[in-house]
Each structure stands twice: as structure tokens, then as C-alpha cells.
């Protein structure tokens, strides 16, 4: 027992190496997946994939999901879920489009969808904390239907097209920096993600959101106002849904009541692929960004390779399951080596 065989030494060394790598894989693993996808894209479509024409499309195509996902992430961190974001997106979008048609002052059309989203989030948060509905699944499922119905009522169920320049600028505009045109949606996403990173990592409320997801009881007895923090999380998520509505409206130069159907599932997928725990308290803003990119790049690469849209859906499903499965394995390896 006292002497160790060379074999045992090697495996011990390998094991310790693996243990030391885990925190890095933990933090950056999903970024390697993103890099691999870029490589695959570049290899399969060398003439198209890395061109500015292709890449500059990505922010526009994925901005709405990126914005929804960061809001969803905050809610998932509290061990919650918000199923209503797709419908709230449509409600915000339709209200904006209809009011624009009625001659509402264009500048007020920018905060409006965000305020509508916040109101929906407030409703979700209060339903959860004050009505004490047992799980956010329930109240946000209710809101999913309410907001979708209202979105149709606002417009009489028909699309509205032609929006003011201000709205189009937010969704589809470009700002020239030097010789290149930077999409406004890219700037919005960059500023938001930076803001949410600072908020979640470096403010008391942000840390309390993680603590609530880790152990709500611990948060409560530490004097944290859990209910107020939860309401804030849902209001933020709602605000993001409203902003996403504005971006989609601007991008499509219209409002259509079926917008955002299933968008909540894409947002949840991005958050989960990005390594956040569905049970709260775990995950990073960088991970969410990677999750959004994985979904966006997957669609882009498959489109460029003329893969049928139905197969794209199959593959995204496979990626979700794979991502979580890898997470499970990683945790198992991590815990046996403690």
C-alpha cells in the first residue's frame, strides 16, 4: 500500500490535471463550442461564412433572442421561469405599431414597448409573490395567453405595416464607424450584456438574485427582501421582452400578432445551452451570450448549407440535450474528485 505503481501515479497526475481544468471548462467550455462552430462554418462555406455580408446579418437575426435570453437568465437565476416573453413581445410590438399608425409621437414609441413589457413583468412578479401562485410556470403561462390575446385585440388580429423611422432605426439601423456599418441592434445587445454583467456580479441586488436561486431560505433569514427582488427579476425580464418587441418591429418594419410564438423556448434554450442551471443560482452572462451564439450560428451554418428548416429544429433539440448532458457529466467528474 505504501508504494504507488507508476501507473497509479500517472492516473493521479491526470486526475489532478483534470481537476485543475474543470474551473476553466466550467467557465469557458461553451466558448470552445462557439469557436468550433465558427471553424465548421468557415470550412463548409469558405467563400460565404466569414464575409461581412453574412456576419453582419447575425446581430439582426439574433438580437431579439439575445435580449429575451438575458432577461430570461435573470429569472432562471432565481430558480424561476417566464413563459410569457414571446407573447409580451407581440403585445408590445402590436401596441407600438397600432399607436404609430394612429399618429402617436414617434419618440414616445421607443419607451412604450419597454414599459408595456415591464407592466407584464410586474404582473408576473406580483402574481408569484402576492397571490402566492405555486410556481412561476403558472402565472407566466396565464400571462402568455393574456398577452397574446391582448396583442390580437389591439390590432383586430391583423398585421400593421410601415413604422416611423425611429422605430426602424432601433431594429434595422446602422451606425457608421470608420468604413464599416455597425448594426444598432449589435450595440444594444453589447451595452445590455455589459450592463447585466455588472448588475449581476457587482451589485448587492445582483448577488441577492444568485443567493435566492441558491437558497431562498438563506436569503430570507439574512434580511434580504426576497419578494421585492423576485418582482424586480420579472420586471427586468418583461422589460427585455418589450425591448425585443421593439427590435423585431423595427427589423420587420411592421407589427404582426403572431410574432414571438415559441420565442420563450429559444430564450430558455440559449440560457440552458450557455450553462445556467435550470434550478437557479448558477450561470453567467458570458454563458448566455455563448448560448445565443450557438443557436444563431447553428441556424446560419445550416442555412448556408441548404439544410431543411425542420432539420434545424431537430439539431437545436439535440444541442440542448447534449449541452445539459455534458454539464451533468462534468459535475459528476468534478464531485468524484473532490
Amino acid at each position, binding site marked *: 500500500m505504501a508504494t504507488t505503481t507508476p501507473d497509479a501515479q500517472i492516473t493521479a497526475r491526470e486526475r489532478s490535471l483534470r481537476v485543475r481544468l474543470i474551473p476553466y471548462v466550467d467557465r469557458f467550455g461553451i466558448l470552445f463550442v462557439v469557436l468550433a462552430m465558427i471553424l465548421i462554418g468557415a470550412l463548409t462555406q469558405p467563400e460565404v461564412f466569414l464575409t461581412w455580408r453574412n456576419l453582419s446579418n447575425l446581430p439582426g437575426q439574433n438580437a431579439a433572442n439575445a435580449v429575451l435570453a438575458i432577461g430570461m437568465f435573470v429569472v432562471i437565476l432565481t430558480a424561476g421561469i417566464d413563459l410569457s416573453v414571446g407573447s409580451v413581445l407581440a403585445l408590445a410590438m402590436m401596441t407600438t405599431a397600432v399607436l404609430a399608425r394612429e399618429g402617436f409621437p414617434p419618440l414616445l414609441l421607443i419607451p412604450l414597448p419597454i414599459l408595456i413589457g415591464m407592466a407584464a413583468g410586474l404582473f408576473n412578479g406580483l402574481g408569484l409573490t402576492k397571490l402566492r401562485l405555486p410556481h412561476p410556470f403558472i402565472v407566466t403561462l396565464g400571462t402568455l395567453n393574456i398577452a397574446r390575446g391582448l396583442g390580437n385585440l389591439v390590432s383586430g388580429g391583423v398585421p400593421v405595416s410601415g413604422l416611423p423611422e425611429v422605430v426602424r432605426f432601433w431594429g434595422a439601423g446602422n451606425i457608421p464607424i470608420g468604413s464599416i456599418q455597425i448594426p444598432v441592434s449589435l450595440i444594444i445587445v453589447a451595452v445590455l450584456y455589459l450592463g447585466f454583467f*455588472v448588475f449581476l*456580479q*457587482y*451589485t*448587492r441586488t445582483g*448577488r*441577492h438574485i*444568485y*443567493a435566492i*436561486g*441558491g*437558497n431562498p*431560505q*438563506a*436569503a*430570507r*433569514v*439574512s*434580511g*434580504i427582501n426576497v419578494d421585492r427582488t423576485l418582482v424586480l427579476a420579472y420586471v427586468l425580464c418583461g422589460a427585455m421582452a418589450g425591448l425585443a418587441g421593439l427590435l423585431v418591429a423595427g427589423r420587420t418594419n411592421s407589427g404582426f400578432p403572431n410574432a414571438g410564438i415559441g420565442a420563450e423556448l429559444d430564450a430558455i434554450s440559449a440560457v440552458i445551452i450557455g450553462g445556467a442551471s435550470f434550478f437557479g*443560482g*448558477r450561470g453567467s452572462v458570458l454563458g448566455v451570450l455563448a448560448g445565443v451564439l450557438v443557436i444563431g450560428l447553428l441556424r446560419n451554418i445550416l442555412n448556408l448549407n441548404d439544410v431543411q428548416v425542420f432539420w434545424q429544429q431537430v439539431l437545436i433539440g439535440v444541442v440542448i440535450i447534449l449541452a445539459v448532458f455534458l454539464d451533468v457529466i462534468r459535475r459528476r467528474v468534478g464531485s468524484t474528485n*473532490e
Partner: protein
Amino acid sequence: MTQAENPQGTEQAPLIEARGICKYFGAVTALEDVYLKLYRGEVLGVVGDNGAGKSTLMKILAGLYPPSAGQLLVEGQPVHFSSPRDARDRGIEMVYQDLALAGNMRIDENIFLGREWLRRFGPFKLVNNAESLRRAKEHLDKLRIEVKSVKQRVEELSGGQRQAVAIARATAFDARVIIMDEPTAALAVKEVRKVLDLIKDLKHHGIGVILISHRLDDIFYVCDRVMALFHGRNFAEAPLAETSRNEVIGWIMGNKSPAAQAAKIFDLN
């Protein structure tokens, strides 16, 4: 020790006192007219069977539940706690049975949860991680609690280390009273001693400790005085030196006379 052994003699007000506390949950009576006093540097053991009302009484002292009737006093002043924060502001801290730690967060973040160290950053106040880590390390050193690093997540710690972190959190800011609900229940044998010695340290710093435990070994190792609750009422109380294990076992089962007690134990065997 001298303070604790002769607390009634010195006419100083108790750190915390409960007078005639009642607590009803709907039709269920959890506590009926309960009295409790705790002095500086004293460790008070609270015993009782499951459902005797120990945990409920402690949660009232810690501000988690409001009492249905009765009065709490802190150093002779009547107080009213509407949340654990109010109790903490008065220097009353509780270490919960289920520890109430956030496993996903660092040790220092748990110690300072709800009372984070902040730093001004223009118009904002941001969390000061460097200060938090430094203070946590300092505080754990003071309590002679050893961990690999205060950056570890609490879920990576052993049961005893978690208990130590929970105690460190309770003592991080000038606590005067620390209430511990079964702090050794989930621990390995060698870790129990460490936690009990930690309690003795707290006592020597003049902190009052209320210890709920099923383990009479714990009670007889650290306590100065022991009180028993039975069916939600005060049942018996004595300085540790004036009682015995058998008598305390009797109290837990609702027996006061030594003869009845012996009979009961005999029956059980």
C-alpha cells in the same frame, strides 16, 4: 465563567428575555406562557421532545415569527421584531438547523449575505470583493476556523465546515446573542467537538448563547444552565451543576420526580 455562574447576583439586565410568550398556529398551541432569560457570557441549553416548542421559541427570539402574545426584552428594553433583520440589528443572530447557507456562493459571500461590503463607483455602490474576502479571512482566523480558501463555494465544504461558516456569519457583526438550533445534529463525531469549543470561545467573548440540542453530551459539555420545555410550556430549569443527566432526561419526557423518572427509564428498557 464567574459571570455566568452568578448571573442573578449581579443585578444586570438579561441580554434577552422572553416574558409570557404564546404562539398559536391556527388552532394549534405551539407555546403557552413561556419565560426565558439569557445573561452575558452564558450558554443556556434548551431541551425538550420533538414538538415541545423549542424551535418555535427560537424563531420568535430571532424575529422570524411574531409572538401571538407576550413580550420580548433586549437588555431590559421592550422590543418588537417584525423580521430577522430587526433582530440582527439588535445583535441577535440565529444559526438555523438547516444552516440556511447558499451553496452556490463563496464562503465570504455567505458570511456577509445581506450585509455586503460595498465600494463607491461614481454614482453607484458596487460589491467590494477584495474587502469581503479579506474581512472573511480575518474573521475566520479570529474564530480559529480553518478552510482551504474563503473563495470556496459552500457546497464544497464538509458538514462541520458549513456549520462553522454559519456560526461565522452569526458572529460577523457584534452579535450579543447567538441562537443555535441543533448545531451538531448533522456532524461527524470529530467535528462536533470543534463546534462545541467554538461555542465556548463565544462565551468567553461575553456573547450569550442559546443551544438547542438533543444530545445531552453537548448540553453537559458547554452549557451553564439548562431549561426544558414540555408541550409548549416551561417545565423545569436548573444550573447545570445542580442537575444530572437522568433528571434532564426525565424533564424531556415530562417527569419531575426522580422516582417517576427511574420508573419511566425502567419501563423503556
